């Protein structure tokens, strides 16, 4: 019995040993290894994880730990500076707790960014694979539509659409999703174009795979690494777009806090309470910076050729 167990142990050790010296890793394992030694990307990831956790646990953190909430107004406690008693990050123009609003605002800003990025990526993948795979008239039409949509300056389009639909967070996600898919589509379309002529697709077809199966089981997984990179950059871009819209007054309307509308609201009180301007801006910049760094890191990890 004991002998048997130790034999297994030795076999396992040997196996690990072998693994280390004759690595036969797939793309994702290789990328993971490279990321593990890429300090800036790791740092950016951990900062982002902290932000996400803070946003997720916003109610618990603000109400239970800091004993504040985001709605209570107090005329007496307007414009409290940082590190005031009871309000660690001060208060805003209505005396609401700034820390709590930042936490809740992060929930919505990050939520809008992630949800809209996933939505636009989803649309982009389906349309792109479809256009690249079938080609022909459908491809031409999609291409024409994309060129047209891209010719209208993005912010113009956003502004006129948000005047139609009152911009609640969910509407904003839909709008961003509907307008943001063209970049992904172009990428996916080009990749699909080149992949569909490869041998393994021909092999799949010879074995009787349907078009749909080829598109979503054989083509999409092969561009997945590209999509992860796109995703992290798209989230960053969308958080910036949300803040820009809020600055112009067409974003999510107060009192619902987002980092964007907190920042644009704080602009009016920049002289009295500069922290109302510094903090939301800093949070947006840090988040987007981390997302872009991760995007760059992932690109280098998946395709070390590009990383010089």
């Amino acid at each position, binding site marked *: 019995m004991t002998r048997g167990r130790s034999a297994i142990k030795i076999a396992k050790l040997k196996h690990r040993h072998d693994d280390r010296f004759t690595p036969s890793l797939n793309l994702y394992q290789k990328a993971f290894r490279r990321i593990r030694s890429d300090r800036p990307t790791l740092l950016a990831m951990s900062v982002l994880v902290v932000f996400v956790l803070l946003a997720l646990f916003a109610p618990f953190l603000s109400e239970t730990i800091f004993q504040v909430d985001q709605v209570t107004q107090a005329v007496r406690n307007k414009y409290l500076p940082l590190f005031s008693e009871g309000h660690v990050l001060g208060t805003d123009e209505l005396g609401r707790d700034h820390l709590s609003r930042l936490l809740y605002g992060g929930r919505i800003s990050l939520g809008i960014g992630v949800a809209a990025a996933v939505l636009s990526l989803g649309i982009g993948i389906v349309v792109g694979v479809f256009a690249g795979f079938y080609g022909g008239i459908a491809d031409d039409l999609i291409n*024409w*539509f994309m*060129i*047209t*949509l891209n*010719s*209208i*300056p*993005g*912010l*113009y*389009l956003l*502004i*006129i*659409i948000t*005047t*139609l639909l009152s911009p609640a967070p969910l509407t904003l996600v839909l709008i961003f999703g509907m307008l943001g898919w063209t970049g992904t589509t172009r990428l996916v379309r080009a990749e699909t174009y080149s992949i569909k002529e490869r041998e393994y697709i021909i092999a799949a077809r010879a074995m009787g795979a349907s078009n749909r199966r080829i598109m979503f089981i054989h083509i999409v997984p092969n561009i997945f690494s590209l999509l992860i990179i796109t995703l992290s950059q798209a989230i*960053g871009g969308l958080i*910036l777009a949300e*803040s*820009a819209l809020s*600055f*112009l*007054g*067409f974003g999510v309307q107060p009192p619902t806090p987002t980092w*964007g509308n907190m*920042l*644009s609201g704080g*602009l009016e009180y*920049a*002289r009295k309470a*500069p922290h109302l*301007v510094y903090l939301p*801006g800093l949070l*947006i*910049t840090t988040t*987007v*910076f981390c*997302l*872009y*760094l991760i995007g*760059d890191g992932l690109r280098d990890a998946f395709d070390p050729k590009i990383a*010089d």
Partner: protein
Amino acid sequence: MQRYIVRRLLQAIPTFFGITIIVYIIMLLAPGDPVALMTFDPSIRQDERERLAIKLGVNDPFHIQYLRWLIGDDWMLVDSNADGEVDSWGDNYGILRGDFGSSFKFRGSNPLDLISQRLGATIELNIAVVLIGVTGGLLIGVLAAVQRGRAFDKSSRIFAVLGDSVPVFWFALLAIMLMGLVLPRALEPHGIGDGSPFLPMGGRCPPVRGGCPPIYARLHYMILPVLVSALGPIAGWSRFMRASMLETINSDYIRTAKAKGLTSRGVWIGHGLRNAIIPLMVFLGPLMFGLIGGSVIIERIFSWPGIGLLLFDSVVSRDYPVVMTSVVIGSILAMLGYIAADILYALSDPRVRFSGARP
């Protein structure tokens, strides 16, 4: 080359119609119907209102309304006195002939005139930004490539990512606070300045009658807006330039140039830079184009009287004819930017002309 330009211009036609369709649909869905807006006066009777509705054609099917907006209705008979029968020719020329209706806010003025008054300001700002952005980006990118792996290279890469991730209006505000408040106050006790802002905080020129003085007399008004909006382009171009430069420098003809004993400056500038710039022409279109869209923000925060600010003001006051005109004109400008960049690219790289497609 001529054939390429003609083909490229022909490709723009369906795009133009697509733009007008999208803009028209969006505006048709906009809240507040034009009749109610034009007859806000309570003394107007209901039947007059109905007559106006028929005259404006708001009850027509979509494609008729769109065509009337696009090519006008002076070629068709319309029902001008609302008796259910067509009786006279329309009096609209349609946007294709430059008739964008008339502004609600500035009664009776042609939106096209409003835009052409402001176009100069936007173009002036954008050209300055492109110049500063491209030269700054090229310099940083080339230096980073030459110094590859050293401190300057690393910090320029961080700067590039950071420049992309700062919300531009926040950065603008920080710049305004620094130049208008913090620095003047800090330097006043040391005898520098008198505590007033170092640079104009907004506007295109001092408020004088008879328009702005020539551009050299008000360059200081451009410093803040141009530097702030050039941050993104500098960041982007430095990154592209570095990558392109490194790719070029590893090619065979560079090795040949080195082997025959050229100075390193000759190799980098004469052979490297000249070839590395070519692929970057592709980004020129998106750059000009992005600036037109982004100028709404810059123009708003610096009160720069361009078309971005006009669009913003008209959206706020629901002046739909002006909104539609600014979007259509802005899109045409963007389209022209793309075409100009494509032609530049084709001029610099003959392969494009002959294959017909971008590589």
